[in-house]
């Protein structure tokens, strides 16, 4: 596992296939190349690995921030924590041009169809990150007006616990998403399982 330091000098891990220093080159590289065969003038690897490498390090997130988790995400975006270090330089506020939906905050039942519309407008492949107790389970708002977890209306890939989670947790969640993205098969979105998943959410 590669280790990375946050601004306070604390270390946390990130997936092995990602950021690592390559001592043989003498300087750190941003990402490590996937496994493959290398020779004079060529490097051969799986197409899925190459595409995954590109996708995972250039996610365009769509922040769907409705409450205090959104404030924590703003801190995560800003210079102290800086998600741009992970290839998320551009936040997309347009669903068509984004591939990671970050749902941060309480989703009222009246908001649910809006969130669903945003999800269905995103182009495949797309991933969903549910940040905080409210988005993941309704949180303390066990009441008639609040959706008890966004996974009741859209499929979720990674949940971040916390009320609200610290920026380090958000970055950890993003790294987990990146690991999923990097390992995803190119055919997954055409698979029967994926179609079935969307069917259970009545999304076509």
């Amino acid at each position, binding site marked *: 596992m590669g280790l990375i330091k946050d601004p306070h000098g604390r270390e946390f891990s990130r997936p092995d296939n990602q950021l690592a220093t390559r001592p043989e080159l003498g300087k750190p590289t941003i990402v490590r190349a996937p496994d493959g065969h290398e020779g004079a003038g060529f490097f051969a690897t799986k197409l899925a690995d190459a595409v995954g490498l590109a996708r995972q390090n250039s996610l365009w997130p769509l922040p769907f921030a409705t409450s205090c988790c959104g404030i924590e995400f703003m801190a995560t975006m800003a210079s102290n924590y800086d998600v741009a270090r992970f290839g998320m330089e551009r936040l997309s506020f347009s669903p068509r041009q984004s591939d990671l939906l970050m749902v941060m905050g309480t989703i009222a*039942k*009246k908001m649910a169809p809006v969130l669903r519309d945003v999800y269905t407008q995103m182009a495949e492949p797309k991933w969903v990150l549910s940040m905080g107790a409210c988005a993941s*389970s*309704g949180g303390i708002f*066990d*009441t*008639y*007006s*609040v959706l*008890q977890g966004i996974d009741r209306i859209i499929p979720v890939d990674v949940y971040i616990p916390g009320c609200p989670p610290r920026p380090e947790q958000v970055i950890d969640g993003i790294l987990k998403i990146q690991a999923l993205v990097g390992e995803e098969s190119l055919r997954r979105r055409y698979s029967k399982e994926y179609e079935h998943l969307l069917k259970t959410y009545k999304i076509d």
Partner: protein
Amino acid sequence: MPAFVVKADRDQLVIDQLTAAFGADILSHERIADMLVINTTKNVLHQVAQHCKEQLDFNFLTTMCGMHYSERDTLGLVMHLQSMRKGHRIRLKAEVPLKEPVFPTFTDLWDTANWMEREAWDFFGIQFTGHPNLKRILNMEDFPAFPLRKDYPLEDPTREDKDDSMFGR
């Protein structure tokens, strides 16, 4: 100087005028903190409000909300009126039976009443005859209940992850 002080002479004027005009329909009056509270009936509430606006200079409807008195099966309506010029405010209250919760609309007196009446309809199911657009304002349009009535269970019934034994029940 505080924004609101007890205005005993104005309060007395309101009481005198309203009892003279509406007699037994003014059920009672009392002062809570700095505010005069007039309890009246649903039949004359609109006329009382109109009298307050036109004769007593209450030009502003600060707020209006519903109430549910479950112990006597009635729904109530509470209105806060304010006179900008006189620096005076009062509260009007009336109740209707739960079975027939109907008031006349107050939108003809104050346009502010439009959304407040929609809120009272949304949360308590109080109807306002003559309202131009009486539909839900905060809840989903297909919401099946009036959630602030006391017989409505507050917790979301669709949640499965709660173990009753953890909550002592």
